[in-house]
């Protein structure tokens, strides 16, 4: 019931194919529902490139068609916290993570939504902010609606590069 910000620091977004489980640790940002009935609204995504040479990254926010197994709890320098300091903890908090024992699979299904956030990571910045009622919604904690991930799609022509990013979201 309060906005939270999931931030990654100096993550190398390794380009990976849609429809296959990601194979590189700490190369994506995933957000999963904390319970089978939780709804999460994603309100903003920002990616600021830190590559040292021209690197076009096909960043996408996509559904996970197969969920991860045994996610690793987020650790510094990455972070996830409420935008308002006096926020009460949810009984079932949302689960942000950047690595897991088996990584999630970004959906390659034509009827699953994807948000195009392509940019050149050599100094490029992209920010998407949802218009009212047009937020990206995660529902429950099962595939594909219960988990979404920000990743770099080699399927869409992306190349691996370094970036910082944040996802502003509101769990209910």
């Amino acid at each position, binding site marked *: 019931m309060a906005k939270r910000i999931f931030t990654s620091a100096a993550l190398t977004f390794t380009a990976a194919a849609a429809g296959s489980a990601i194979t590189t640790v700490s190369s994506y940002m995933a957000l999963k529902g904390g319970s089978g009935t939780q709804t999460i609204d994603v309100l903003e995504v920002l990616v600021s490139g830190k590559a040292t040479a021209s690197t*076009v990254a096909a960043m996408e926010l996509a559904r996970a068609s197969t969920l991860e197994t045994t996610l690793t709890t987020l650790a510094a320098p990455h972070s996830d916290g409420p935008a308002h300091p006096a926020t009460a903890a949810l009984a079932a908090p949302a689960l942000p993570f950047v690595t897991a024992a088996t990584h999630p699979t970004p959906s390659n299904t034509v009827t699953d939504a994807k948000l195009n956030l392509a*940019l*050149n990571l050599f*100094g*490029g910045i992209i920010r*998407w*902010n949802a*218009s009212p009622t047009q937020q990206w919604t995660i529902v429950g904690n099962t595939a594909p609606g219960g988990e979404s991930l920000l990743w770099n799609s080699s399927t869409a022509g992306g190349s691996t590069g370094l970036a910082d990013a944040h996802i502003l979201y509101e769990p209910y």
Partner: protein
Amino acid sequence: MTFLKKSRDGEIFVDHRASPGIPAELARKFGYHPDQVKEGAIFEAPTLGCPHCGANVVINPLRTRARAHCYRCNAYVCDWCDAAMHEPDYVHRTIKEIRELVASGNWELSGTMHRPILRKIGGN
């Protein structure tokens, strides 16, 4: 209720002022005009939701043609839904109404989101 039209805007902001930008071929693949994301360019555009089909539309700042408006919703509608609105058998339904009908379990949805076909399936 009165409102500013801009209050319904979302935003997409792509900053390549300090970057070589996206090559023309890839820019087209990603749906941009190459000039919008070339070296030194900044692309900033509002996004709007279509209340009829639920799509999220990037408002192209280079567009000179008129944009559609639904006077029943008093809101922007996308081009595809605007075309459907001009058809003789058009029935006005918002995405919210369609969602409620389908959630009731009494209606089945087929067709496209611009031209939805709702068929009654329950006894109610």
